[in-house]
Structure formats: structure tokens, C-alpha cells
């Protein structure tokens, strides 16, 4: 890539890719530079048209069939970090691989965001390693399939997935049982009914379209649902169970199976809606999902979180309202059009420029999620697996430990960080803003995470096939090397004075014994310096 012939808006284009992908390579840069006017929409159109490139179900299965051929030493980080051991559930490995290798990057980035809303763990329940692998990898495929489709279908796919039934305990859930006097002996498990409202659709408090709280006459927030709503909705999620017919290869990708005799015949009254008694389970489910989908909270609740994952932790109410409006109506009368929502998020004025995202009160941007720091480096390296049977990130928690984050390994259904988190004692909190990612990246977690990326910047080269040729070519001109890497990693976010310091520092790395390895060491040194710089740690 020719640094001299860069388009005038090169940094803006790379910055867009930081919002829309898991990391930028020279190839990615060249491709977006080649687009002419209206390049944002053109790029989005290309991405929306790309077929789903990955099959997580097949990939995880392949990993599982071959895992005995690999040991702790084959993982990035080796045995340096603690290892919880245990069953081989290799969906995490598959997701790292797709975030780093897949060409349909927008789908990967959006899927990563959706997996932090529709959270599961790769080991959801005690159903055996094989079932956990099959169902969890199939789940990621479900999310990827619907990421560019309709939210209503996404919600139904999630709700009928066996891994969700396992994780939120409604697989095997049965209708209530009463004694002769009509006293409850057993009631349906309420877990999914509660979480589908609290986390997947409407949230805890009523919102306006712009994402701000609706207040009652006392100035207090209004709760969206009551315990009674939960109890009633729980009746909907009865009668479903794991598909088990045939081989794991066959049932792993199937929806949960419905058993009418276990479904609640009672009426289900929730959120002002009534599903009459004796409504069958499939119809009940569809109606319940329709109610949640159509609830006025769903658009702002979901859209604000998607903005927070892609662009900025503190979008203005205008920004949220603009995106939520697209959710409610994509312009052609359709509700829940994910493409319209994603397009609005990434092309809205507030996303377009650093200054606009940052805002006048300087509250903009977001702390880059730790796992996306690693994918940024790996994608910069154009990293590819050495074997189709294995990926050196994933089961081993090195990546989870030091980064405090890895796909599908969050501590609970509440993700790694809450959307409303703000560090105590910070100017962020003082001004009523939020910075969710700080929840796992504050205090000494900062040097811990940086240590890992410093380590990985060198070590990735030993575990994956990487291509740094474009950078080695520039290594004899430290200034140019720093500029190029700053462009790709921070969209020119680093000030000249810091870049000069970096260039000076690496000039001390010189050729030894006529070997050209100094080029590699210069390149890696710059990448280590840049990925520990605030301009990289904060995406803006």
C-alpha cells in the first residue's frame, strides 16, 4: 500500500472499518480506498450481499474430532496462564477463528455484538461436551444467519435454540401442577421469561424512542414488567425440550422439540396482552414473541446497545432515536430490519467523524473491548490457521484471563459488562455518562491486558500464518512505518509527537549479522507501542 497515494479521507475510511469490522489489514484498507463516492453505503452493500462464510457447527465439530492431537503447548499462551481444564467444547475457538479470518467482517462484528446481548456460555449446562459443542456452535450460526435479517426472526431462532433452552433452563420446563385444593405443587421455571424481557427485548425501565428514561409524575423510572408478567410469560415457555433424534450431527442444528402434553393450558396474561387458555405452545410462543417484538421499548433498548458495541458508549438521544426509528420502520413499512438499523448506526452523522462522535462535551468514543484488541492485531497480520483441525485461541483461557474477555465465556448471562456501568470516582460517572467496557478493564487490568497484547503481537507469528511483508518493506523508514501502522490501528489517532518518539525508539533496533530480522522486530515494536497507546485502547 502506497502511503503517498492515500486518498485524502483515508483515516475516515479506516475509522469506519474500526466501527464495522474486527480489525483492518492492508487488504481491507486498499479495498475501501478503491470505492468512490458514497463509499460507506457501497461498502455496506457489499457486506450485506456477502453470503455467510463460516459454518460454526461443522468447524467446532472438526475441532472436537481432532482435539486429542493437540496439547496445552499448542495454544497461544501455552501453560503460562491457569487452565480450568475440563470438557472440550470448542465453539469459542471457532468464533475467534471467524472473527479473525472471515471475509464477511461486518457480519462478524455484528454477530459479536449480538452475542453480548443474546448471551450464552459455550458450556451452558450439564448436557455433555458433545451436546454443548453441537448446540452452542449451531447457536452462533443462528445469530450469524439472522444478523442481517429481521429481529423478529432472530428472536425466534434464539428462543427455539437448544443451547438457550439449556442455559436459561426452559428445556424440559413443564406446565404447573396443582393439588386437589388447587394449591401449586410445581410452577414453570421463570428464568427465560425474565431474561427474555430484561435482556433480550424490553429491559427493566420504560424508554422513549431516544433511549432516555420515561419518568412518572414523581420523576421516577417506570418498570416495564412485574413479577406477575414473569409468572404468566413463563407458562409460554413450557413443553419445549432438546432435540435428540438421530445423531448429534443431525439434531445439533435443530430447533427444540415441542411436547403438547407438557405445555401450560392456562391463559397467559402479560404486558397487557392475553393469550387465551388452551392455546397451543407453538402459537403461544409466536404470540409472545410478537408482543415483545412490538413493544415500544424494544427498538431503543436494542438499538442503543448496538450503537454502544459498534461506535460510542454515550450516543446522543438524537442518534438513538434515529436508529430506533429505522428499527420501527425501515422506510418500507417493515419493523425489525437489521440491515436498516446497522446502516443507520454506521452512516449517521454522529458516527461519521471523530469530532462528531467525540461531541462538544467530550463524552464520545468507547473503550475498545479487550477481545477486539487481539483481533485487530491478528487481522493486521492477515493471520490464518496453520491447520484446519485446530485454532490456537479458544479453549485455553489465556486469552480470557489476561484480556478478561473471550467470545462466549462471559461470567453469566449479563455479559462481561453492563450497559450502564461507569467507574466509581470518574468524570464519566460524575457527568452521568457510561463506559461499560471499563468494568473489565480498569486498575491493574489495564497493564494485564496490555501485557497480553504485547505478548501476542510477537507470539501470534509462531502460532498462525501471518503476512507482515507490507510493513517490513517500510521498516527502513521508521517514520513511515509508524505512520502506516497508526493509520491502520488508530485511524491516525496518534499525535505526531508520540509517533516521532516511537520512530526514534525503533531506530535503535538495527541490523545484526546482516540479518533482516531487525525489520520484523521494528514492526512488532511499533505494533506493541501503538496497541498500548490510548488512541488504540479508545476507539474514536
Amino acid at each position: 500500500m502506497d502511503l503517498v497515494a492515500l486518498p485524502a479521507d483515508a483515516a475516515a475510511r479506516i475509522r469506519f472499518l474500526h466501527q464495522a469490522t474486527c480489525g483492518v489489514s492492508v487488504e481491507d484498507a486498499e479495498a475501501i480506498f478503491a470505492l468512490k463516492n458514497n463509499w460507506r453505503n457501497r461498502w455496506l452493500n457489499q457486506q450485506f450481499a456477502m453470503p455467510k462464510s463460516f459454518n460454526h457447527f461443522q468447524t467446532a465439530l472438526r475441532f472436537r474430532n481432532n482435539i486429542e492431537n493437540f496439547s496445552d503447548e499448542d495454544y497461544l499462551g501455552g501453560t503460562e496462564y491457569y487452565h480450568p481444564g475440563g470438557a472440550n467444547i470448542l465453539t469459542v475457538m471457532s468464533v475467534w477463528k471467524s472473527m479473525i479470518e472471515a471475509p464477511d467482517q461486518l457480519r462478524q462484528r455484528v454477530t459479536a455484538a449480538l452475542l453480548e446481548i443474546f448471551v450464552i456460555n459455550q458450556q451452558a449446562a450439564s448436557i455433555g461436551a458433545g451436546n454443548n459443542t453441537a448446540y452452542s456452535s449451531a447457536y452462533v450460526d443462528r445469530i450469524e444467519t439472522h444478523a442481517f435479517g429481521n429481529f423478529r426472526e432472530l428472536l425466534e431462532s434464539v428462543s427455539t435454540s437448544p443451547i438457550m433452552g439449556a442455559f436459561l433452563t426452559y428445556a424440559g420446563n413443564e406446565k404447573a401442577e396443582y393439588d386437589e385444593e388447587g394449591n401449586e405443587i410445581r410452577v414453570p421455571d421463570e428464568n427465560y421469561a425474565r431474561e427474555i424481557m430484561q435482556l433480550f427485548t424490553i429491559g427493566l425501565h420504560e424508554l422513549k424512542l431516544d433511549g432516555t428514561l420515561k419518568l412518572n409524575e414523581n420523576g421516577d423510572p417506570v418498570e416495564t414488567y412485574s413479577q406477575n408478567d414473569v409468572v404468566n410469560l413463563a407458562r409460554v415457555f413450557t413443553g419445549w425440550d432438546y432435540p435428540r433424534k438421530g445423531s448429534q450431527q443431525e439434531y445439533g442444528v435443530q430447533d427444540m422439540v415441542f411436547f403438547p402434553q407438557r405445555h401450560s393450558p392456562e391463559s397467559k396474561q402479560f404486558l397487557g396482552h392475553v393469550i387465551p387458555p388452551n392455546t397451543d405452545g407453538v402459537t403461544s410462543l409466536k404470540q409472545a414473541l410478537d408482543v415483545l417484538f412490538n413493544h415500544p421499548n424494544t427498538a431503543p433498548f436494542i438499538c442503543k446497545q448496538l450503537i454502544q458495541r459498534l461506535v460510542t458508549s454515550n450516543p446522543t438521544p438524537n442518534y438513538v432515536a434515529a436508529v430506533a426509528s429505522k428499527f420501527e420502520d425501515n422506510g418500507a413499512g417493515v419493523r425489525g430490519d437489521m440491515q436498516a438499523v446497522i446502516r443507520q448506526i454506521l452512516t449517521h452523522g454522529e458516527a461519521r467523524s471523530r469530532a462528531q462522535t467525540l461531541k462538544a462535551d467530550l463524552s464520545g468514543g468507547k473503550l475498545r473491548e479487550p477481545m477486539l484488541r487481539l483481533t485487530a492485531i491478528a487481522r493486521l497480520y492477515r493471520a490464518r490457521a496453520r491447520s484446519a483441525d485446530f485454532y490456537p485461541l479458544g479453549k485455553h483461557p489465556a486469552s480470557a484471563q489476561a484480556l478478561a474477555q473471550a467470545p462466549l465465556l462471559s461470567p453469566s448471562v449479563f455479559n462481561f459488562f453492563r450497559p450502564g456501568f461507569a467507574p466509581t470516582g470518574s468524570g464519566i460517572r460524575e457527568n452521568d455518562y457510561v463506559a461499560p467496557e471499563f468494568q473489565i478493564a480498569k486498575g491493574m487490568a489495564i497493564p494485564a491486558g496490555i501485557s497480553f497484547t504485547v505478548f501476542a503481537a510477537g507470539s501470534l507469528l509462531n502460532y498462525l500464518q501471518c503476512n507482515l511483508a507490507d510493513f517490513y518493506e517500510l521498516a527502513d523508514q521508521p517514520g513511515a512505518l509508524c505512520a502506516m501502522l497508526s493509520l491502520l490501528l488508530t485511524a491516525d489517532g496518534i499525535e505526531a509527537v508520540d509517533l516521532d518518539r516511537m520512530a526514534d525508539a525503533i531506530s535503535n533496533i538495527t541490523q545484526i549479522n546482516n540479518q533482516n530480522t531487525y525489520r520484523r522486530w521494528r514492526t512488532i515494536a511499533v505494533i506493541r507501542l501503538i496497541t498500548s497507546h490510548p488512541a488504540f485502547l479508545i476507539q474514536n
Partner: protein
Amino acid sequence: MKTSHQSTRREFLKLMGKASLFGAAAPLATSLLTSSAMASTYGFNDYRALVCIFLYGGNDCHNTIIPVDQQRYDTYAKLRRAAAVPYGDLAGTYIDRTGGWGNGQQMALHPNLSQFKGLFDRGDLGVVMNVGTLKQPTSRDNYSRGRSLPPNLFSHNDQFTYWQSMQSGEGGSGWGGRLVELMDSLESKEQLLSMVTTGGQSTFSEGNRLSSALVSPSGPVGVRAFNPRANPLEMVWDHLKQPSPNLLSRELARQTELAYETRELLEKNLEGTQASLLSPVGDPEVVGSQLHAQLNMVARLLQGRASHGLNRQVFFCSLGGFDTHGGLMDVHPQLLKIVADAMTKFQDAVDDLGLGDNVVTFTASDFGRSLTSNGRGSDHGWGGHHFVMGKPVLPQAVAGVAPSFAINGPDDAGFGRLIPAVSVDQYAATLATWMGVSAVDLPLVSPNLEAFDQWNLELLG
């Protein structure tokens, strides 16, 4: 008594709420620690420390403490099949608890825990039987009806998170973090060392204000050194600490300052301490373990504690590998050997430092495991048995009751997974009481405690 502690509680709750008590103009480094409305009502003159050893994966409780009365051993052996510990191997490790086990029962430690027998007999080790995550006392009946249970009972992540926090949902703080925040006034920067983690970041160590100090077996976690010729480490720290108008960058810089200060305090803490405080004698495969290395680091930090002068500290260590779906006959016994050896040697080191009365070490895990086995491994369980170690332990103390070992019996959650009789809340409250937390404040550490009658298990004096 009530008045002052109620005000403590109110202040504490206020701190946990939305209102910030720190001005935007507070100086960078110490703004976390600015003296506030939360002046601690706890003033201590003595030193006490808790050391948590978290066994990640779910330690197999049924091969850790084993019934040796004939009837129950037979049930155990039948269900455990090839993975049962041979009867003859248990002769030397009977747990002779005060007053006996009752009901004709007798329990023994796994033979690889023989060092624990020594500690138990001399009164420096106690046992907590069948402890696990509970929101309220739970019978088999409650369990089968799904009444008020902790979330996602057999899921690793949810369970170890719950063991460490006793909260679900918006929580985010661990009981270790809450404990230190309750007792420390957080007025001096030294209090950044109140919570120290050697075993990797965890929910346990996170407070609402305080982040844990992080240390690896080789020293404080810092930015890993790279390329001596470029010598860029100072540059990295400078970049991170540089002031910037953007709110998020400012916070990153502030957090970096805190990390930097914590790191410096840790370095000072380690200055002059002996590199190796745990006896190196023994099988290299055992003494070279992660746990030995972590406990050695804790011992060093204890040795150097004059550098900070804190009166209360909590340490978090961890060891992985306990998710024995297979390996119950080889991997698990080796892990038990490591745990017993590391803990025993740590106690020796603590005693040599003259801190025998001041340090209590305890184990914890995601869950116990199923009793039934395919002969090679066991499945995720619920209640498990744990150990509390230190001179403050009451002689031959055993809290809780031995499981009934009856399939479909009153403590069976299916497949011999134990319904806990003791909750993590009670376990934590017992340890917090020893640390000096008053009864009124205990629910701040253990949020579900009010559902239980016994807030202080008879373990520590």
C-alpha cells in the same frame, strides 16, 4: 451499637448507588481514595488476612472426603465404580471430629490429603461439609419445584461467579471486594493493596470502588517488557498517563495512575523479602505447581507487610483443572496432592513468620460433583466440601453435616449431586466475622444471609 452501624450501612449503600462522591477536579492518583462520607467505623490494631484458594472446574467432593462406615462406603463404591478410592487406602486419614460424626458415620480424607490429617489433628484445619450456592435453605422438594434457586446451577461460569459474589444480575462486585471496602477507610494509597490477586482476575476481587492489586508468581503485573534496544516501557506508561480532554481518555489515564501506584506499592512490599518461603522439598511435579508459586508470593507479601502497614487484607489464589469429567483416578488425585502440599507448606511459612494467629486460608470451588460416575469421571454437582486452615480454627472443627449417601435421599439433587446444607453466604459470613465485621454489617458481605439462621458456623475462634 445499632446506630453507628446503621449509618455505616447507609453510607455504604449510598456509595454503591449512583451519586458520585468525587468531584471531577479530584487529583488523578488518589481520587479513588479521597476521604468521603464513608469514614470507616472499623478501626483495627491487629493484622488479619484471609486467603481464598479457588479451585476452578468444580472439585470432586465425593473423592475428597469419603465415607468409611461400611454401609455408606458400599453405596459410594457401587456408584463410583472404578473411580472409587479403595477402602484400604483410607485407613490412615480418618477425620476424627469432636463428638464424632453421629449416626454410625465416619468420614476420611482422600489418601493424597494425608497432610491435612496432620493439620486437622493438631487443630489447624477445619472442614465445611456440603456447602454451596443457595438463596435460602433449600430442601429436595424446593429444588424439584425450582423454588428460589441461584441461577444456572450446573454452569461453570454462573456458579463460580455466584460463589464469588452471591449475586446475580447487575451486581458485579465480589464478596472479597465488598469485605475490604467495608473494613478499610480507603484514605491512604496503601489501601490499594487491601485486595491482592495472584490467581487471575476474578469477580471475587472486585469491589464497587476498589480494583484488586494483581500480582503473578514472579512479581506485580505490569506492562511486559519488550525489546531492550528500543527500551520503550517508560514510553508506554507515559502515553497511558498522558492527560487528554476526552472523558474516556481521562479515565483511562486515571486508572493507569492507580495501576502504576499499586504496582509501586507491590514492589515496595516485596523489597527485601525472601524469594522462596515455601519449602521446596518434595516431588517436583507437585512443588512446582501454580498454587505453590502463588502461595509463595502471598507469603512474601505477608513477610513484607510492614511496607504498607495495613491491618486487613484479602488474597485470592486459584488453581484450575478440577472439571474432572474424566481423569478422576489420575488427574484429580494429583490435584489433591498439590492442594494439600501447597496449603500445608503455606501454613508452615505463615507460622514461621509469626502470623499463625493472623491468617486464615480457605478453599472454594464452582461446585461439587455427581456421585455416580462412568468409572472415569464425574459430572457437575452442587454442594461440595471445603477446608479452612489456620491457628484460629477451632480444634477438630467440622461445620455442616455429612451427606446421607442415599440416592433419592433428602440431599440428592439427582445422580448424587448434593443439595447444599450450608450456603456460601454463611461460609463467607463466618470468615468475615473472624475478620471483624459486626453482625449488623454481615449482609453487606453476604447478600442472602438474612434467609439463614446461623450466621457464624462454628469454625473459628
